[in-house]
């Protein structure tokens, strides 16, 4: 069967797998953004605390995904749960690091006038520093998202959702007529999804960057 006929026949399944792939990545990135920004906000003031947060998340990112998933299975079983936890863990480093960098990069004069005007530390972080750091944080989120699309394929091996299933079923059917079609569909699907999200980030950046920073 040629590839176009294969696509036609399996379109609905593929679409569903792609949707699940996108959903699991998006959900994980959202969670990781909430966690990562919070960790960044809590640690940026102290070089030591933020250094620890960054080193730990870097070390976690160094762990191969299959190994991390293996360690999560005894705790969380198979499927979505270990997948999401693993994906969240892997996306922390770029988000934490960019949050810390972003919060620190705010002009000292801006910080001094915030303090001089009587903003509390918390008000300064939430009303001044985070909006100013947002473009940098968003870049971290974008890097994480791109990374997760690839990592999420491995999760199929522990019964996770998404296009990894298509690739693995190609591997399982090695030698059969549709093996290549499946591998191509799965791989290309992941690349296309990643590209689409990357494109969406350009728009998101435009929409969410404070106007005063764009002029």
């Amino acid at each position, binding site marked *: 069967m040629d590839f176009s006929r294969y696509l036609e026949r399996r379109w609905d399944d593929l679409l569903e797998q792609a949707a699940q792939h996108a959903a699991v990545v998006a959900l994980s990135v959202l969670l990781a953004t909430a966690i990562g920004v919070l960790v960044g906000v809590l640690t940026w003031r102290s070089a030591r605390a933020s250094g620890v947060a960054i080193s730990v998340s870097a070390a976690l990112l160094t762990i191969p995904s299959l190994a991390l998933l293996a360690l999560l299975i005894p705790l969380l079983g198979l499927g979505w749960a270990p997948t999401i936890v693993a994906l969240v863990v892997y996306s922390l480093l770029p988000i934490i690091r960019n949050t810390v960098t972003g919060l620190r990069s705010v002009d000292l004069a801006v910080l*001094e006038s915030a*303090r*001089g*005007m*009587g903003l*509390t530390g918390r008000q300064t972080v939430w009303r001044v520093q985070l909006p100013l750091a947002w473009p940098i944080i968003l870049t971290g989120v974008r890097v994480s998202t791109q990374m997760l699309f690839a990592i999420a394929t491995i999760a199929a091996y522990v019964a996770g959702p998404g296009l990894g299933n298509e690739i693995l079923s190609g591997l399982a059917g090695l030698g059969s007529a549709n093996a290549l079609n499946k591998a191509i569909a799965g791989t290309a699907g992941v690349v296309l999804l990643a590209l689409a999200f990357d494109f969406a980030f350009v728009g998101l950046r435009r929409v969410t960057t404070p106007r*005063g920073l764009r*002029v």
Partner: protein
Amino acid sequence: MSDIKLVNVTKQYDGQPLPAVDGVTLDIAAGELVVFVGPSGCGKTTTMKMINRLIEPTSGRILLGGTDVMSIEPNELRRHIGYVIQQIGLFPHMTISENIQLVPGLLGWDKTRSRRRADELLELVGLDPVAYRDRYPRQLSGGQQQRVGVARALAADPPVMLMDEPFGATDPITRERLQNEFLRLQAELRKTIVFVTHDFDEAVKLGDRIAVLEERSRIAQYDTPERILATPADDYVASFAGSATAIKRLALIPAERLPGKPLNVANGLPTLDKGGSARDVLDLMIRWGTAQVAVDGGKAVDFETICGLLGDDHGR
């Protein structure tokens, strides 16, 4: 109205052999503009920042309208003290109006009131509210940004303002214009202002009184500009005041107040515009090589008059 009293205020940083500010005692009357002037690193900014507790004093007392600032919650204190710095520090993600409304918002003013207040202040600092309120800081020139900085500091109508070299980063022409506007503003508002600069000429021009500071913020002389120029307390003050102090003093005397002979016909004398000083009169005389200058309102001022202005301390 709020007067400011510094009583034996000292700041000692850990690990430093000497205090950064050493036992400063100083009274600033309500509605008075006092300039702290001194070389960089002399502790003048540190002294100023202790008033709004951006730096906490190690010992001594600072009283604001009779209340010890250490008894006021620091953020609450700062919301009632205007603060202007050289680097301006406008929030780039907020519009001009939002920048000005921030402190009123923190103080719980309602939206309409703080919006109206922002417009009023833009008007006051010479920026058209309609044209500027919705712009962002990066769309403004340095001089315009500093005007907004001043407007923002005035937002909640604080009785006290602290200004740290606010015009230091602007070019000489903009700086002079900002200084003039600021003087006009202060004549109207009568805030109690502590103004820090290392530019002695700026201090002379703006200050009701000047505190000339030495190392560790010790006060070498605290007096009016006229008297510091006429009778510097010691060699340090004299060297800081620089040369040509007599000419600088002339700049403090408005030309309108000079005695002169009535002048009915235009007789070809060089004429000084409104708002000039005795120094400008002298400048015109030298430039034109005449001993007489017409000052607006139709009087003629003589060279002898100018020479006699500074009283009997010629020999200094």
